């Protein structure tokens, strides 16, 4: 049976249809778009908060999307163990909503950076990375102006100790270097997961590296991991 993806559409989202296309056409699952003014996400197996510029990035990226009516239900879903995946602007919304710790600051270069980067999988023991190998290097594009991850020392230690840093920017050989850091993120952090392991946010766009027509398919490892994990989980249930 196909999984049901729920993809939230905020005013200014622009990766919502890419996510839907990949979920339906590439992954062969069901996907519906959920307008942000809805009060319920309905019957879905996972929620994607897609990339884009919700509310024009006014005030701070993700700060206003967090107050969209649908977010109450997304928070409820997440707190009940539901799988929530925030990509790019979705990651920014998750930190503003308090579902993930830290914050995403303006890129250190002050430039919008749109390019392929290398990511080291630091934790393959999550439902989002079960198809990856720890230490594996993925090539996935980023496209953001505010992706500079920051958290205070205590939070950073908690993330490190809890193995919650899932992806770091690295060079093609997997070395975590300053040169491989595209935005100034603390510790080259590109993606983190919450303590319970059901909410992940990442700045790179796996959905943009999933269609073989585009020649890069490393993003599928992440998306296939989610599908496999959730299908496996539902079979056990």
């Amino acid at each position, binding site marked *: 049976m196909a999984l049901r993806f729920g993809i939230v559409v905020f005013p200014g989202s622009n990766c919502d249809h890419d996510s839907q296309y990949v979920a339906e056409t590439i992954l062969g699952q069901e996907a519906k778009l959920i307008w942000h003014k809805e009060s319920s996400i309905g019957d879905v197996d996972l929620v994607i908060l897609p990339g884009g510029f919700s509310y024009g990035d006014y*005030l701070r990226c993700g700060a206003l999307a967090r*107050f969209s009516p649908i977010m109450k239900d997304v928070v409820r879903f997440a707190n009940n163990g539901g799988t929530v995946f925030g990509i790019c602007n979705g990651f920014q919304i998750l*930190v503003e909503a308090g579902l993930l710790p830290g*914050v995403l600051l303006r890129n250190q270069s002050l430039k919008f950076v749109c390019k392929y980067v290398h990511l080291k999988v630091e934790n393959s023991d999550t439902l989002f990375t079960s198809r990856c190998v720890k230490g594996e290097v993925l090539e996935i594009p980023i496209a953001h102006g505010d992706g500079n991850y*920051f958290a205070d020392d205590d939070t950073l230690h908690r993330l490190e100790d809890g193995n919650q840093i899932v992806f770091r920017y690295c060079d093609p050989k997997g070395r975590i270097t300053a040169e491989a850091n595209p935005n*100034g993120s603390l510790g080259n952090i590109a993606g983190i997961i919450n303590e319970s392991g059901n909410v992940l946010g990442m700045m790179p766009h796996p959905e943009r590296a999933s269609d073989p027509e585009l020649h890069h398919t490393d993003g599928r490892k992440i998306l296939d991991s989610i599908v496999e994990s959730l299908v496996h989980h539902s079979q056990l249930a």
Partner: protein
Amino acid sequence: MYHSKILVTLRQSILDPQGKAVEHGVHSLGYGLVRNVRIGKFVELDVDARSREEAETVTKEVSQKLLANPVMEDFSFTIEERS
């Protein structure tokens, strides 16, 4: 009616690349005496409160909950009564 003026600034511990870029610009203009440029936000709003205390409470809560993100920003405000 009360009028609040709120300043949102990046916390001192956070590097401000925008401020740095502006500082370079200021130096290029020849003002070498200028240092520590930091960029923040200015928000003003009216509060239909009955007392200054109520206006302060509302302004503070709005700043904490939305206008500033405590992970990276501090805020301060002033309030004046308007007729």
